[in-house]
């Protein structure tokens, strides 16, 4: 079922945890609530579940206002960060708990348990106690338990927070597959932008209780609504040049700023992929030393240090890096192709601007 929040706020005493938030999760969607800790995303999830009451505003599930419906009656599946399994019950009894309360028939309960054990790859573990399971297994039991009574929506709080990196990757892929198979409306909370980008159909970004942007992973990456989103999703170089004679300068870098008064401070942001590097020192306008190389897989992130001490982060493929014969400590030339002028963090972003640039040489056929 769809979920809708209308002007929802939540205050804990003086603290505003969630500030006038409205968004819709469409039926069957896999939605991520993303933001730094303390951003209010878990509170939003708990309000959808009925574990917290909104101070003002309405929560709707399947088009019906559920503010006055108790958590027991909302028919939601909730997966807690630390799983919150019933330690005194076996895996089978954990899964059966919600079914017994809903007064399912014995045979139906047994059939549902068998079905879920199979779906979650937990066969043979039904009579184990939670402490006899691995972290990944525990989480699957928690999700199976939440899904057992066929809830109208599935809510997960930091579902990948408590497992190690390798299992986390498996679980992400598995959650996508599971959602694809079951097609139940799913909302999960995460502070990891990579996770949200990879798993979700759409992302809601929170910061300090405010909703910053709702959109598909591509939208929030390519058209961030404001500087907060731009910096939170992906990496961004942010510089603070001062305008002189119509040009904003910081260290060696210059950005055209026509019409801006002298002495005006600007904030400039550009993505690492807007930076181009060459080992040929005459190729591009600026010079720098390649300080660090971070291997991220196919892509590399490199840190350039300018003679003035400015640090600029850039991104390139492994092949390009090898082709140019780059290594840490070597001198390079570089240019910046696009940039944005940033205002305050929450203000809408200005459109991207192009700088005059030298087209890179065509690479050999060896890539």
């Amino acid at each position: 079922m769809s979920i809708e929040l209308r002007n929802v706020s939540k205050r804990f005493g003086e603290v505003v945890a969630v500030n006038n938030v409205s968004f819709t999760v469409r039926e069957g969607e896999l939605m991520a609530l993303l933001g730094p800790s303390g951003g209010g995303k878990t509170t939003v999830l708990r309000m959808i579940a009925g574990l917290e009451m909104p101070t003002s505003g309405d929560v709707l599930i399947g088009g019906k206002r559920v503010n006055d419906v108790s958590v027991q009656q909302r028919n939601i599946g909730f997966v807690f960060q630390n799983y919150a399994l019933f330690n005194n019950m076996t895996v089978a009894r954990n899964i059966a708990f919600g079914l017994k309360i809903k007064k399912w028939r014995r045979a139906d309960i047994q059939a549902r348990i068998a079905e879920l054990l199979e779906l979650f790859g937990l066969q043979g573990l039904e009579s184990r106690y939670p402490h006899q399971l691995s972290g990944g297994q525990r989480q699957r039991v928690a999700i199976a338990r939440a899904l057992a009574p066929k809830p109208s929506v599935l809510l997960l709080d930091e579902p990948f927070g408590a497992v190690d990196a390798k299992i986390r990757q498996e679980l992400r892929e598995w959650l996508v597959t599971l959602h694809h198979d079951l097609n139940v409306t799913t909302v999960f909370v995460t502070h990891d932008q990579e996770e949200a980008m990879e798993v979700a159909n759409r992302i809601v970004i929170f910061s300090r209780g405010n909703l910053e942007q709702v959109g598909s992973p591509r939208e929030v990456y390519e058209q961030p609504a404001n500087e907060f989103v731009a910096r939170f999703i992906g990496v961004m170089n942010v510089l603070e040049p001062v305008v002189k004679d119509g040009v904003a300068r910081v260290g060696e870098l210059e950005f055209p700023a026509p019409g801006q008064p002298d002495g005006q401070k600007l904030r400039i942001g550009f993505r690492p992929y807007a930076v181009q590097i060459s080992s040929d020192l005459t190729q591009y306008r600026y010079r720098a030393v390649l300080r660090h190389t971070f291997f991220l897989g196919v892509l590399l992130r490199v840190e350039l240090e300018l003679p003035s001490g400015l640090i600029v982060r850039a991104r390139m493929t492994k092949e390009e890096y090898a082709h140019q014969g780059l290594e840490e400590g070597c001198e390079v030339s570089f240019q910046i192709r696009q940039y944005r002028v940033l205002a305050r963090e929450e203000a809408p972003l200005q459109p991207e601007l192009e700088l005059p640039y030298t087209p890179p040489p065509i690479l050999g056929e060896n890539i």
Partner: protein
Amino acid sequence: MGFTLVYLSAIVLIPFAGLVLRACELSWADFWRLATTDRALAAYRLTFGASLIAALANALFGTLVAWVLVRYSFPGRRIIDAMVDFPFALPTAVAGLTLSSLFAANGWLGQFLVPLGIKGAFTQLGVVIALTFVGLPFVVRTLQPVLHNLDREVEEAAATLGAGRLRTFVGVIAPTLLPAVLTGFALAFARAIGEYGSIVFISGNLPFKTEIAPYLIVMRLEEYDYTGAVALAVVLLVCSFLLLGAINLLEAWTSRFAR
């Protein structure tokens, strides 16, 4: 390991062995005669019966007290929390004296209770009251850390699955607490069996009525009847041992789901 064994031997095992050896000097028939006099049987019944009732009461109300102390915050909570240790700290004789004056016919509580037919002083009820008093901290202190560690999210998980408060308590919370409650119960029970100081004042020590087994041992000693005292002591020892063993087994069973 070695140190632990030596220490345990010196403090616990050697005195026990001495007691048993002393009892071995008796023939079986003599032992049986001395250990099962009518007066002794009445004393056992009171000691174990009253201890059981007191420990059960403590298991129930101690759980309640621990729950309130952990889960609710109210003015004076810290003071009440500190007061739970009172029966530990108070010399038992003082406790006995206080209780007996409280429940005597002209005491603070006694003046209201005695007309209602509730006689606290010099009755078996008095023994139970005194034993409940000394046993309370055992249950509360055993339970508090367990309650603190109880994950709130587990209760919320039960709620999201449709369980009301009662269902959550019976199905999820109670089984988690049970091993700790049993430990507390066993400690309170063991303490009650050995309790002497607080009871001698409130019970009046009437043979066949309010005389507890430990008091009877002291009586025998005062009569220079060492063998009689030893026979009684051995019976107490064996019974306590068996009961604690049984409770431990029960505890192991209820905590089969824990590490």
